[in-house]
């Protein structure tokens, strides 16, 4: 056993601590090292994913303490898919941000890279851990790094956004801790498998209260309405690669945690209605807010919240098809929204103006970036033949199988809103008259490679979704199969 899930977390964490030292030796170490680490992570996760899908879940025991006593990492097919996604996205985002703040030397960039890396590490930790308290730790790590990244620019808006994030984030932490506490008092365990095993015996009142605390806290991270007030500010004030990372790394981890709580700790039936309702409200309010935005990044942020809402709906429906759709949606969201943030930030970088109005006729200056943005916009709305269509279609199919007509109509009505504002932006980019003549910043090679690879993924997954369908089916089946999870973790041979 050469590689193990521990490496995925340990490597970035270690690298994050080492970077200040390495930076002393080599000036650009802060830029290069994360890439190496992420590449390593990517290859490790590739190996692990293969192993998981070939021979079942991996349970990694830390320091020899077997579950339920020690801290352990569990890599089920479900988490394996997300690990793979997060590793890949973290790498792509690093690639995109390779020339980030090229003009600034030393410290600033270093902080940025360290924080990015720690956020990735924390997210991977959330996905991999099999221990509830450990999850809390990782949530804290990601949360604090995310807050730091939000306030990265140290200006007024950044500080305000960071403060909002910190306020809500710390409330979330408190509730998470409360929830864990309650569960620990009732079940006497922090190991998720053991909790799941013992949960049916717990008194309903306490169980539900704990669930509420967990949902509140994880919902805050997963941008659930009405707990998502931090998101628009954070997305729009954070550096662009970080915005992408919020969608592609942090969001993935948060929605994973939510799913883990809902499907493993508790019965799916308990949270089903709540998730559907809150998911739909999230989606509805987010899209309604998005259509009125005048700021590109805020618009994208609200759209992100909408996508998370859709994912919650899918987890709420909870059938195998729905989970498949949800997983596919998370993947799509990570890829497409990152692409949108990446391309969008190039617009902003060129225009020094975040307003949508400034985008008029930008395609003449940034033809390729505009093309990618348009592609992303069409894909995220769910036009075939792009990948966004399949996830949405699968979720709808799952709803259709349960004959939830109002829900379907609701989702699609909200999609109309979503489509309207995305296509408006496309119209602006391509067909409106240009207003100003900004200086031109061409995207760097690394960024181009990053964006192009995402775009290619969108098209490939759209035309040939069967490429990942097998993995996703296995993953979603495993998430539903609570007993196997408990068996695997608790009864290690």
């Amino acid at each position, binding site marked *: 056993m050469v590689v193990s899930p521990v490496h995925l977390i340990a490597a970035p964490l270690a690298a994050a601590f080492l970077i200040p030292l390495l930076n002393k030796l080599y000036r650009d170490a802060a830029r290069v090292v994360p890439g190496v680490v992420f590449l390593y992570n990517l290859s490790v996760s590739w190996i692990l994913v293969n192993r998981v899908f070939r021979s079942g879940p991996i349970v990694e025991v830390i320091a020899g303490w077997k579950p339920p006593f020690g801290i352990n990492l569990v890599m089920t097919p479900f988490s394996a898919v997300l690990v793979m996604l997060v590793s890949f996205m973290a790498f792509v985002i690093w690639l995109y941000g390779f020339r980030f703040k090229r003009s600034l030397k030393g410290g600033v960039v270093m902080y940025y890279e360290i924080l990015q890396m720690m956020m990735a590490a924390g997210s991977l930790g959330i996905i991999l851990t099999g221990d509830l308290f450990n999850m809390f730790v990782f949530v804290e790590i990601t949360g604090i790094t995310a807050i730091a990244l939000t306030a990265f620019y140290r200006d007024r808006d950044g500080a*305000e956004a960071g403060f*909002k994030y910190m*306020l*809500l984030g710390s*409330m979330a932490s408190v509730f998470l801790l409360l929830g864990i506490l309650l569960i620990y008092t009732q079940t006497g365990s922090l190991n998720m498998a053991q909790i799941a095993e013992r949960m049916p015996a717990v008194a309903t009142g306490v169980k*539900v*209260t704990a*669930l*509420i*605390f967990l*949902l*509140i806290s994880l919902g*805050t991270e997963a941008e659930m309405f*009405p*707990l998502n*007030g*931090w998101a628009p*500010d954070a997305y729009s004030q954070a550096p662009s690669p970080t915005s992408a990372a919020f969608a592609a790394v942090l969001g993935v981890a948060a929605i994973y945690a939510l799913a883990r709580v809902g499907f493993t700790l508790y019965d799916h039936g*308990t*949270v089903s209605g*709540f998730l559907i309702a809150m998911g739909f409200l999230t989606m509805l*309010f987010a899209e*309604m*807010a998005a*259509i*009125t935005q005048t700021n590109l990044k805020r618009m994208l942020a609200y759209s992100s919240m909408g996508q998370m809402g859709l994912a919650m709906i899918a987890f709420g429906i909870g059938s195998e098809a729905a989970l498949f759709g949800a997983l596919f949606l998370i993947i799509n969201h990570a890829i497409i929204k990152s692409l949108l943030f990446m391309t969008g930030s190039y617009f902003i970088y060129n225009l020094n103006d975040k307003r949508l109005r400034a985008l008029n006729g930008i395609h003449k200056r940034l033809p390729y970036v505009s093309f990618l943005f348009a592609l992303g916009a069409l894909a995220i709305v769910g*036009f*075939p*033949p792009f990948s966004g*269509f*399949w996830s949405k*279609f*699968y979720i*709808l*199919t799952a*709803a*259709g*199988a*349960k*004959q939830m*007509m109002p829900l*379907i109509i609701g989702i*699609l*009505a909200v*999609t*109309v*809103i979503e*489509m*309207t504002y995305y*296509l*408006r932006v496309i119209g*602006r980019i*391509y*067909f*409106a*008259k240009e207003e100003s003549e900004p200086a031109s910043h061409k995207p760097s090679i690394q960024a181009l490679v990053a964006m192009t690879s995402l775009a290619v993924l969108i098209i490939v997954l759209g035309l*040939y*979704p*069967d490429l990942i*369908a097998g993995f996703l089916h296995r993953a979603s089946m495993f998430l539903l199969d609570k007993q196997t999870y408990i068996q695997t973790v608790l009864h290690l041979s």
Partner: protein
Amino acid sequence: MGIIYVLGILIIGALAAFFVDDLNRKWTGPVAMLAGFGAAAAFAFLPGGIVRWRILGFSMHWETDALAGFFAWIVLGLSALALMYSVKYMEGKARQGYFYASFLTSVAGMFGVAVSKDLLSFFIFWEIMTWTSFLLAIYNAYYGVETKGIKYIIFSAIGAYAMLTAIVLALGQYHSLEFSDLMAAGAFRFSSGNWYIPVLLLLGFAVKAAVLPLHVWAPAVYPKTPMSFTAVFSGAMSKMGILGMLLILTGIFRSATGWELTLVRWVLGWLGGLTAAWATLQAIRQNDAKDLLAWSSVAQLGYIVTAVSTGTRLGLMAALYLALLHAAFKGSLFMVAGAVEKQAGTTDFRRISGLIKRMPWTFLTALIAIISLAGIPPLGGFVGKWLLYESLISETHAYFLVILIFFASTSAFLYSYRFLFGLFLGQEEEEAKQITEVSWWMLIPMLALSAVSVVTGMYPGLIFRPAARALESIGLPAGQWDMSILSNVWGNQTDVFTVGSTVGILFVLWALFITFKGKKNTRWLTTKEISTSGEIPAPEDNCTFQRGFFQPFERAVGRLYRSSMDQLWEDIGAALEAFFGFIRKIYTGNAQTYAMYVIIFVVLLILFRNYIF
């Protein structure tokens, strides 16, 4: 495997056009044209065959039966000609790669819709054709078309998502998306308990077919799209809605009796009739040829929808016949508008007139197409009208509906005349003197489409036979069709061949008479030398009557003109936006509020935990 080749040629053509445009702009158009003709040729010469493949566990089924073939011919034939027309029409315009790539992808989408035999691939192709056409609709940015294009896409999305809802519900209910399976299971029947499935599907098709309350996008978008694509847009893409209606309603038609059929006939039939009448009234008061044609398209689609709704032998034949013929004559009319736009710079009736001497061939095309559109006997349009009326009178006994349709088609004379008069007749503008005829690259497609009207005027059987096969392929009675004799269920006949030859012979005789009688002493004057008032108009004066042309009619119609469906939708849109703006205020941007939300949320959840969980 013909289907794969056709789609392949179109997609490769689209990519090729996109990239060729960067290399050499001159070759973009010809490459696209080659792709268009190549696709048509591939469809003609290769056996269509059946294509089945699975994607994400859904089976896709494409097949070229007679019905698919009929509509595929409308799409591919019209598109090939429109692409040929495009070569010169788009000359010198920007972003040709973008244009042709979208064009060809859109054609591929339409072709896919035509050959799809399951709802999922139908929907996927439908969406492809929709968003590519959106990209084309906003091509002419300088018109300030952004909002209009958005209107189109919103309506399309409403339609498409209605379809999608129906699709996922049908999938949940019947576990198959094959048309044949669903039909066999009775999924498209109102009586099946899932009445919403056919209703939602029909809603989706109604948007594309621009049926009354959902028609507003068409008049907004058709005029602003480049004319070479509008020809396809109006001629072929809207027919996909008709195709969908046919496919959905087949089951109901087959039953031939019952309240479902009555419902379809009443609701859909009247919606079609009202669309036709309303759009005709709107077309009459347009002052721009393109707007006029756009409204006229809506009106013609109204006839077709009504024809579909009858579900009878004559009615369905009328629908298919009109679908093809409308593609032909409206295609050529939009091309005429494009030709005028290219040569004269505008299609506003108030700014140009008297182009007949400058663009005689274009005028000839327009004349034939307009006669066909108006349904005047010797040309093909009459046959469609005849079938429609006879089916409504003798088969479905929709007596008042037929009056409405008749009102629409009589009023259609007004705008038909306005189109010809506004562009081609009247006095010449002084500055119009240097306008020349368009190139043959544009004329040949136009004339070819006009020829369809002429030929079918004498031999409508040329369309009847494939159309009858198409109807039989979906299990509807088509019966025997003669080459040129039309007959209704009461056995009354009209022999269009006799009509055509009589009119032709008499016309030639009298034309010869009037030409050769006193030929020496007949002078041909310019339009400036008119007899009124003995005044000599200055060369720069133009007496052509163009403003408020149908004012008496408008006054007669009166109040009806004051209401506008478009305004209604725009008001709804504005109200929604305002509402969204209000909702957005939930996100106040104030950290304390957000914190309060969290607390309230927690409290609520805990209070109501017994109900929620």
